[in-house]
């Protein structure tokens, strides 16, 4: 019996071994490819390499934005967390010594870095939770898994303690990093704006993408995977940085490598270096831009009146200067953001707001150019038509005043023709003209000049302004001097005077230089109208008694233009000046607005004058 049972035991063992062999056969002979692929997938890591963003320069070669390599002292929290208290104290002391910081400063930086990790996780979690069936178990689980993953991963990656530090600090840190666990020096690219606030509103700035932006823009890069951005990337937030984000953004590099279990690279399988993004050259002229910003800043420093100035090339539509005051420094915008939007501080003046294309202002007397055009074109008046100004026009029971009819003048312009009316900016003359021309023609010609629609400048967030057909008689009278339901942007006004300067050719303003200067069409007025308008605008500045004579007339260059003082309710009138130069052979057109600046010639005129003179001296 024993031998039989022994045989059975042997048989059972055979069966066991046969089972092992069968399983081995299945794995190694039938499914070997599957397991090889599984292994390959796990030991090959694909890393993406960030690419530097392209530079933004002015037409005269001044760099406004560029990516520069910066070296930062970083911490790896995973190493720190393994230390006991004594080691940690010693670590803090050593790092404080290296960075020239105090112990308290180190602790603050460490806390800030930890907070950044926590906020990254929160942001990511929030994003996941907002994309799917709200409150579902699967979504919660996904968010939880992602959180766990990030909690594991982020403390193992270097977190910035001191960004962009001097060479001697990084040298000391690097020397110490061999013995100081968790201290790492990293090199990365940082967006820098060497000229600070110069053309800040045009250039814009970059910022870490928000979940909202991520959703908004993530399909912009479809088909060009190497430019895609992730939730932790930076993207152009506003201005040129936003508008030409696609061109500026570099192509990510890609490294495919074999790693061991500690994620140390062993062998590089493929290496595709990153490619820097394309540069964008702007039409901005740095000297003109600087002049505009300085002139506006002086006004702001003196009077606390914000303002904007635009200057374009009459023929091509190149934006030579575009300034909005107050401004900000894009280098520190993310740090200063709280201050910049604080409604009790600087935020009251909205420094982030590009007034030149976003601001909607009543135009005031500058609109008389449109009224005159409409009247001449419809034949309502001729240049020699005369009206008498007694300081006001009485329509029914209502009195519409001319500026000269009010305090402190209490007078009238007398009987004058069109050129004189433009020169002295007589309201009564244009009240009459507007009534004769009619609301429909006024609005039509305002639209011919491009009001009420965007100019199509290559900057985001441009406002179209507003032109509405007046319904009542009084509204027509108001519209004829640029009041009432009319809102315009400085860029639109600038384009209007450019059309007057350029014989009716409406340019298409643009900020990028190699965008071909397409014309936006013709305003469509007769040559005789053009000549009358030109002459009228010239007289405003260059003939004694003109509203711009005292403040705008220049010895260097012949300026033509029109002042405007737009009623703006509380806070006082907006001051306008729009014109072109040189008169004989127009090259540039410009428009300046000073919010609540008072009289157009006095407040906005000097800014326009300095722009024209800067152009002449260029």
């Amino acid at each position, binding site marked *: 019996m024993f031998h039989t049972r*022994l045989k059975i035991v042997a048989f059972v063992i055979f069966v066991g*071994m046969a089972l092992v062999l069968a399983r081995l056969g299945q*794995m190694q002979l039938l499914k070997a490819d599957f397991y090889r692929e599984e*292994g390959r997938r796990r030991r090959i890591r694909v890393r993406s390499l960030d690419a530097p963003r392209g530079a933004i320069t002015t037409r005269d070669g001044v760099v406004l934005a560029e990516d520069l390599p910066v070296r930062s002292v970083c911490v790896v929290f995973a190493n720190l967390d393994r230390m006991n208290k004594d080691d940690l104290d010693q670590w803090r002391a050593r790092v404080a010594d290296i960075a020239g910081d105090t112990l308290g400063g180190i602790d603050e930086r460490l806390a800030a870095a930890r907070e950044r990790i926590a906020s990254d996780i929160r942001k990511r979690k929030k994003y996941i939770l907002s994309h799917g069936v709200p409150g579902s178990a699967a979504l919660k689980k996904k968010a939880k898994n992602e959180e766990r993953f990030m909690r594991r991963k982020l403390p193992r990656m270097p977190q910035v303690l001191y960004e962009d530090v001097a060479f001697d600090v990084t040298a000391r840190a690097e020397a110490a990093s061999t013995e100081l666990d968790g201290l790492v020096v990293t090199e990365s690219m940082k967006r820098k704006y060497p000229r600070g606030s110069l053309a800040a509103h045009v250039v814009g700035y970059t910022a870490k993408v928000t979940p909202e932006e991520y959703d908004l823009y993530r399909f912009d890069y479809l088909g060009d995977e190497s430019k895609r951005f992730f939730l932790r990337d930076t993207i152009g937030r506003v201005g040129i940085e936003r508008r030409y984000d696609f061109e500026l953004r570099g192509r990510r590099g890609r490294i495919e490598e*074999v790693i061991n279990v500690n994620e140390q690279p062993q062998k590089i399988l493929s290496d595709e270096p990153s490619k820097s993004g394309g540069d964008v050259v702007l039409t901005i002229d740095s000297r003109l831009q600087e002049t505009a910003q300085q002139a506006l800043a002086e006004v702001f420093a003196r009077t606390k009146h914000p303002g904007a100035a635009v200057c374009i090339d009459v023929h091509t539509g190149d934006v030579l200067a575009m300034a909005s005051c107050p401004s900000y420094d894009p280098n520190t915008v993310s740090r200063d953001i709280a201050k910049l939007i604080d409604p009790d501080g600087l935020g009251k003046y909205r420094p982030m707001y590009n007034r030149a294309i976003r601001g909607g202002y009543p135009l005031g007397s500058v609109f008389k150019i449109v009224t005159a055009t409409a009247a001449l074109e419809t034949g309502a008046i001729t240049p020699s038509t005369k009206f008498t100004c007694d300081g006001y026009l009485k329509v029914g029971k209502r009195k519409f005043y001319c500026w000269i009819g009010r305090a402190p003048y209490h007078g009238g312009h007398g009987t004058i023709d069109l050129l004189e009316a433009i020169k002295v900016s007589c309201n009564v003359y244009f009240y009459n003209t507007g009534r004769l021309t009619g609301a429909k023609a006024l609005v039509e010609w305002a639209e011919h000049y491009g009001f009420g629609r965007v100019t199509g400048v290559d900057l985001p967030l441009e406002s179209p302004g507003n032109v509405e057909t007046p319904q009542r008689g009084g509204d027509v009278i108001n519209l004829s001097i640029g009041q009432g339901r009319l809102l315009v942007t400085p860029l639109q006004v600038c384009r209007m005077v450019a059309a007057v300067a350029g014989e009716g050719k409406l340019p298409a303003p643009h900020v990028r230089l190699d965008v071909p200067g397409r014309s936006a069409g013709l305003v469509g007025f007769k040559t005789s109208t053009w000549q009358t308008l030109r002459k009228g605008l010239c007289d405003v500045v260059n003939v004694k008694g003109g509203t711009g004579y005292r403040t705008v007339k220049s010895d260097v260059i012949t300026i033509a233009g029109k002042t405007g003082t737009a009623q703006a309710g509380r806070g006082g009138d907006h001051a306008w000046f729009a014109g072109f130069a040189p008169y004989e052979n127009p090259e540039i057109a410009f428009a300046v607005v000073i919010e609540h600046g008072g009289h157009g010639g006095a407040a906005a005129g000097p800014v326009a004058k300095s722009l024209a003179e800067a152009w002449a001296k260029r």
Partner: protein
Amino acid sequence: MKLDRAKRTLKNFDYLLFGAVAALVSIGIVFIHSASAWRGQWGELVQPVDYASKQLQWAVISVGVFFVILVPRYSRLKPFSIPFYLIVLAVLVVTLFIGTGPERAPVRRWIQIRIGGRRIADIQPSQLMEVALVGALAKYLMFKEVVRIRHILAVFAMTAVPMLLILKQPDLGTALLFIPLPLVMLFAAGARVRHLAWFVGLGAGMMPFFWVFIMKSYQKMRFLAWIEPYKYEKNAGWQYIHSRIAVGSGGLFGMGLGRGTQNSLKYLSENRTDFIFAVINEEWGFLGALLIVILYLVIILCGLGIAARTRDPFGRLLLVGVVALLATQVFINMGMNIGLMPITGLTLPFISYGGSSLLASFVAVGIMMNVAVHPVMVLSRDRF
């Protein structure tokens, strides 16, 4: 007389058995060498410790112990088997209080032997118990002509007590070895299959109790990860996935010695000890694994052959027990390497790195050989 004995020893020495063992140990040393080198940060080969030469030293010691074991006649030791069992049982109890384990693990498995404050060796009493239990069971069962239920109960009690102590350490792998042992020995001793089936059924019925009261949470986790390794990929499922990848990637011929990526890039943890079979599979493929299986079958068949030739019931049962232990350990280790079994932390006899494991395996094969070289004349009424 002495010469005569040596002559008889040589005559009865099972060269095939010893050859298979030597082959396994040699292959083991080669793969321990392969598994202890790995590719570091820049892809260079790093060999922090030369475990292969350490294993070679242990092999020399173990072979020495093996020949020492051949000297005493095993039948003379028969009277000591029950006291030896009791002493080891006591040591197991003591281990629960003063034992140590791998660094930072809350286990009590080893007893440190210190001389003058220096740590000389770690003894694993559970491995001593394997031998002691086989001896005790063989002694208990050797003259039972009819194995009754109370005998079966006694055998299970003798097994269950040390098993529970070992589970308490905890050491699930070694404890598992103790499940087939009494069954095989009872079967060989002539117990009725019907009775054994009853007990097997009873044991299976107790599994939920076992799961709830005995198993630690990390052991349960390992079991769950065995069923769904990808769900626990980063923690409990890691070894399942990476050992399967290693085995499967081997294919028919393997990736070549030292070229296994799972092994050299350290994805396979415990690759010198518990998972060396996966390394062999990755680098030598199916054919290498086949060779290993054949060598084990040679040892097992030699063992059973000696049992068949022996007329002494104590010797026979001793052999059946030792073979059962060996076969179980091989099956469990291979099973966990290839995904047939949950991971329990058992070494592969003769191959895995580790002096204690190697020594225990040589003691087992020494017992086999001792029975072979010391035939005992027994007058028996009939053939068993």
